[in-house]
């Protein structure tokens, strides 16, 4: 009996190790390849098999990407400004709303919440046409502003949903004590609730920032040249007929670097936010 269970245990352990190895391999290798090939010369990459000699490696791709019509630089700037401002607005409007929905006994809170949740669920194509028409009339096409506004359509619900989950967990006694102490509702929010919510606020901001940075569809439809975001620039790199693959990868690497960095730094908070917001506990 003991012998069988020992073999069984060994089998189980090896399966896990193999599984973890396969998982890591499949998850990491494509990204490693992206990084690697971004440092390789075109002829090294187009050789069969690819030439991994030290001479094949270069920084040239990055140099080219940076200098090519400053498109990537502008794309970065646009992505940054749009993501920053839409996140800021989403927080400024969404945090009080989340608090109201969580704590302030708003009549009809549940239907409102359900509607907000439901808005997360459909693709941008459903709203982009009328938005395009309106924004054209307002002469806002190809501006950072139009993206900042339109991105609120998904940022605001995200902010509300995650923060509401957190605000629900704050002990009601704290707000009562503050009320008895003489704080107005606004003061309770500003002096008590917000200071203890710094971590989730930050995590939510990071989450919204990442989603805004990565957004492609609205950017494709609503911008032309001057307000292009980073994802758009990358797609153009890939759409060229004569593709310098290393540059394509360099552009992609640069475009995802800030966001990946943020995600890795805040991974625990982000994963916690998913859990609280989306999983029934």
């Amino acid at each position: 009996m003991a012998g069988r269970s020992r073999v069984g245990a060994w089998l189980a352990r090896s399966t896990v190790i193999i599984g973890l190895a396969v998982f890591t391999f499949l998850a990491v290798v494509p990204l490693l390849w992206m990084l690697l090939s971004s440092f390789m010369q075109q002829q090294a990459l187009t050789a069969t098999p690819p030439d991994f000699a030290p001479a094949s490696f270069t920084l040239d791709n990055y140099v080219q990407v940076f200098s090519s019509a400053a498109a990537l630089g502008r794309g970065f700037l646009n992505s940054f400004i749009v993501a920053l401002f839409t996140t800021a607005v989403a927080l400024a409007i969404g945090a009080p709303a989340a608090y109201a929905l969580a704590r302030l006994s708003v009549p009809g809170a549940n239907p409102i919440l359900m509607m907000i949740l439901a808005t997360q669920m459909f693709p941008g194509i459903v709203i982009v046409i009328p938005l395009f028409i309106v924004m054209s009339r307002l002469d806002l096409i190809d501006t950072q502003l139009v993206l900042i506004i339109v991105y609120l359509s998904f940022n605001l619900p995200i902010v509300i949903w995650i923060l509401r989950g957190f605000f629900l967990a704050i002990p009601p006694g704290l707000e009562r004590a503050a009320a008895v102490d003489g704080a107005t509702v606004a003061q309770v929010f500003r002096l008590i609730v917000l200071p203890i919510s710094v971590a989730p606020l930050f995590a939510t901001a990071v989450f919204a920032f990442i989603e805004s940075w990565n957004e492609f569809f609205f950017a494709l439809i609503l911008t032309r040249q001057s307000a292009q975001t980073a994802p758009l620039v990358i797609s153009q790199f890939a759409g060229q007929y004569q593709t310098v693959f290393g540059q394509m990868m360099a552009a992609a690497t640069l475009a995802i670097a800030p966001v990946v960095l943020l995600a890795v730094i805040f991974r625990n908070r982000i994963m916690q936010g998913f859990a609280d917001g989306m999983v029934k506990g």
Partner: protein
Amino acid sequence: MQRPVREAGPSGPAGEVSALGTLEQRRRRIGLAALAPTLLVLLLILAYPIVDSMLLSLASVNVAGTGFARHFIGIDNYLALAGDRVFRQALWSSVYFTLLEVVLVIVLALLVALLLVHPFGRAGFFRIVLIVPWAIAPVANAVLWKWILHANYGILNSVLLQLGIIERNIVWLGTGSRALHVLLLVDVWKSVPFIAILFLAGLSKIPTILYRAARLDGANAWQQFWHVTLPSLRPTIAVAVILQTLWALRIFDLIYVLTKGGPAGGTVLLNYLAYRTTFNDLDLGYGAAIANVIFAMSFALALAYVWLLKPGLQQARA
């Protein structure tokens, strides 16, 4: 400490009188005020376009100069959809794609999550590995795989050639059917991490006591999984199914970068079809009709999602 003398009167301790109401009344009022900007924004950016999109779908729209001229035609667009072979093909492809993707993603994500709760998988390293694919822009992902899958120079073909698994370069995106399945695998690769994170959260909420009780009752690892893990995870799996289905319906970046719907329309899914009809064919009314079909499907799923989460929607009683 001396007891201060207090006069009876309608003033608070600091002497101010306020007629703004009781605490409950003020909280409710301010709650509405705090909610108002959000509702306004969502009304303008979401509600109005959704309604207008439905109106558009009931019209034939011409792009005239710098404006748009609409002619009301009732449900003609939808009737046309029913008989449109391209639409039906896209619908079928989308359903097929979605079904397959959901099954693959759920199963793989569950495996990954189980691996990561095992003592060996607890290391933070694995969680970093998990979050990176989620964080990269779908466009970047598409571009990366465009490179990996490149027929002549892509690393996939090189490796397979070197290993002797294939004799000639495979044009991965060469035929409609193959391209569809390749897109499927690429999107599965991108989607598994997030769902795995969801499952990790769900798994962490299962009380370990249940496992201990099961072990005491003599259950082995498989039985524990079947009788403790899976049932406890059922709500999370349900949520994951709905979320993944919704995301499958929204696939765009991959198609746009990798195949543009080809070859031979084999990778035209509903969302992309709506885009192409609207912005390439400039048939706004028809495109809106397709978009509304997607909306209807998504909304039904969203309702299911909300219904599943309902107990969490009750506010905590103060």
